[in-house]
């Protein structure tokens, strides 16, 4: 069943009446009709393209039995929206919003530790199980159902990897954009563990980028536990230190977070490293062939 989301997911959109929230709810629902409603305070009782709108997440969950929320709430209120979803018992919270103040996320992250939920993002493209569920802003048509998992901090670079896989005839089990902020709910290690335990995933493409040490942590885990092949790439080998490269978390600071340290950790963990982002798909083909998986 791939990981985290499938055709049985029941999804609401927080911020469904905003322009981005509305647009992407329509696109995602057209890809796979798993949306059951939306939340916009003050607009409860109204409808959005046949989906009921509620004032609160708690009300939406009570009536629709939603277990997933996609958040498009503007940055000043997005951390609050994450906590609201967690408090209402939503099991998977996918926060697309970019630009949330880090101090807000420090509190929201701490708050959800005691709740029965998983957060993906913020500042991410979302998650897709091709053919079954699209919860986010990725273009559905480039994906193809299959057995390769993809995890990445980036949006369009994930599409690049997916495009290469699809062009090579390899479909995807699930693709997760975990987000480019310094604080995110699901990290590379979490994603690798999920893919490792998923019977429908044969191999994983792991895309990291400069900043922090999450890739090293994931490699330290993978070295001893990952039983499936992993192809890895790190974006930002040419990035200058001390500059924030678009993503709030993509910065080499205090001598930490450089691409070479991450590549070294990948090599040490037996990850099949590609230094060119154009070779993610072809390397995967090569790896699967040598493992006898295709």
């Amino acid at each position, binding site marked *: 069943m791939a990981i985290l989301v499938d055709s049985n997911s029941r999804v609401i959109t927080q911020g469904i009446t905003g322009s981005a929230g509305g647009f992407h709810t329509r696109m995602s629902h057209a890809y796979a009709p798993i949306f059951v409603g939306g939340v916009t305070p003050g607009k409860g009782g109204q409808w959005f393209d046949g989906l009921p709108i509620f004032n609160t997440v708690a009300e939406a969950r009570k009536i629709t039995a939603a277990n997933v929320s996609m958040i498009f709430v503007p940055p000043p209120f997005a951390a609050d929206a994450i906590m609201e979803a967690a408090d209402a018992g939503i099991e998977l919270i996918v926060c697309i919003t970019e630009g949330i103040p880090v101090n807000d996320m420090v509190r929201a992250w701490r708050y959800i530790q005691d709740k029965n939920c998983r957060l993906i993002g913020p500042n991410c493209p979302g998650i897709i199980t091709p053919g079954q569920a699209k919860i986010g802003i990725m273009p559905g048509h480039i994906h193809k159902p299959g057995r390769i998992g993809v995890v990445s901090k980036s949006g369009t670079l994930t599409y690049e990897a997916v495009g290469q896989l699809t062009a090579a005839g390899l479909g995807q089990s699930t693709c997760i954009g975990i987000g480019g902020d310094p604080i995110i709910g699901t990290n590379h290690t979490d994603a690798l563990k999920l893919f490792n335990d998923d019977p429908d995933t044969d191999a994983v493409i792991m895309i990291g980028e400069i900043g922090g040490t999450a890739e090293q942590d994931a490699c330290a885990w993978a070295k001893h536990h990952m039983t499936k092949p992993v192809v890895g790439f790190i974006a930002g080998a040419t990035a200058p230190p001390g500059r924030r490269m678009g993503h709030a978390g*993509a910065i080499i600071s205090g001598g930490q977070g450089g691409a070479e340290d991450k590549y070294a950790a990948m090599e040490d963990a037996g990850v099949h490293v590609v230094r060119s982002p154009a070779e993610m798909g072809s390397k995967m083909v090569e790896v699967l062939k040598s493992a006898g998986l295709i």
Partner: protein
Amino acid sequence: MKLHEYQAKELLRRHGVPVPPGTAAHNVADAVQAAKDLGGNFWVVKAQVHAGGRGKGRFKEAVDANTLEMVVAGAADVPGKGGVQLCRSIDDVKAAASLMLGNTLVTKQTGLDGVVVKTVPVTTGADIETELYVSVLLDRANSRLVLMASTEGGTEIEEVAAENPSAIKKVWADPITGLGSWQCMQMAYDLGLTQKKTSRQAAKLFQGIYQTYLATDASLVEINPMVISSEGDVVALDAKVTIDDNALFRQKEIASWYDESEDDPSEVEAAKAHLSFIKLDGTIGCMVNGAGLAMSTMDIIKHYGGEPANFLDVGGGAKKEQIISALNIITRDPSVKCIMVNIFGGIMRCDVIAEGVIAAVAETGLSVPLVVRLAGTNAELGKKLLAESGLAIIPADTLADAAEKAVAAAAGK
């Protein structure tokens, strides 16, 4: 957003952190008056720029080119006077301010271009017995704020971390309860500050910088050095504060302090057009959608032997006007020998990008080869528009194809 030292100290002072009394002067007469008003017979005059290494920096207008080379190379014992001066008389203050104001300070961090000094804070000189380092920042490993301190004040924390990591002490704040008073006291004792007055003052300073961090939506508050006087009093002698750009919408006063003269003019212009742009030293200009793909585009240019001239993310929903601004900013850089456009259309439609590129070229002309790679949503339509435009655009199908063509074109092949 980086703040100047005097701005950082103002924020810290508001949250109960002791800083040396002083005034930021914009001309020599004000600097002299500031010193007289402060009284005493010992003052510090500093050149206010963001770059580090000011004390060892030298002024372009006062020394020769060889000396500047030495500064940038990080040589010891460079002749001449620097950007931080200890003054024992009013005449010294006047001389220091005259040397600094309006002149160009070159430090190891600024490179040979240097930065023009517009402000000189004048503060009373401190009586220094011990120097320590202390900062508050986000620990990404556990998503909590960490209070970090070391007895090796005056040294860059990166150096301490590399050479003597056990000298760095840390305590983490639970966001629900904040930084506990006991944690601040514990930190003071861990640093060997056992004198009652000193440990209390230090703990109060630690709490003050944590409160400053929260109240100002900082991403870094660093005091280096924090100084203990021979009397055992604690003061923040130098301060660095960086504000989280994502929170500037609710930090209006601080946002108004932004000093655009510290940033590259092309970066300032790009920011106004809502483009994420960073100037680099290479010859291949890049225009890409998405930060990860933009970094990867730089990486693949390098992989094929070229050098990127910039990082540029036009974002997920760029309009035609932004594409035009982006291409204008890139083409204005005289070192750019070729431009590589790399778009993977998701939400962004490739036909919109194509229209933007055609409009920009029609407006400004095209002085260097332009390689365009379009993939994803409406890629075929975008390619068709470019092909029918009659412009001398070099089309590319894949990322590797585009990078190879761009590197060859930049080399004049």
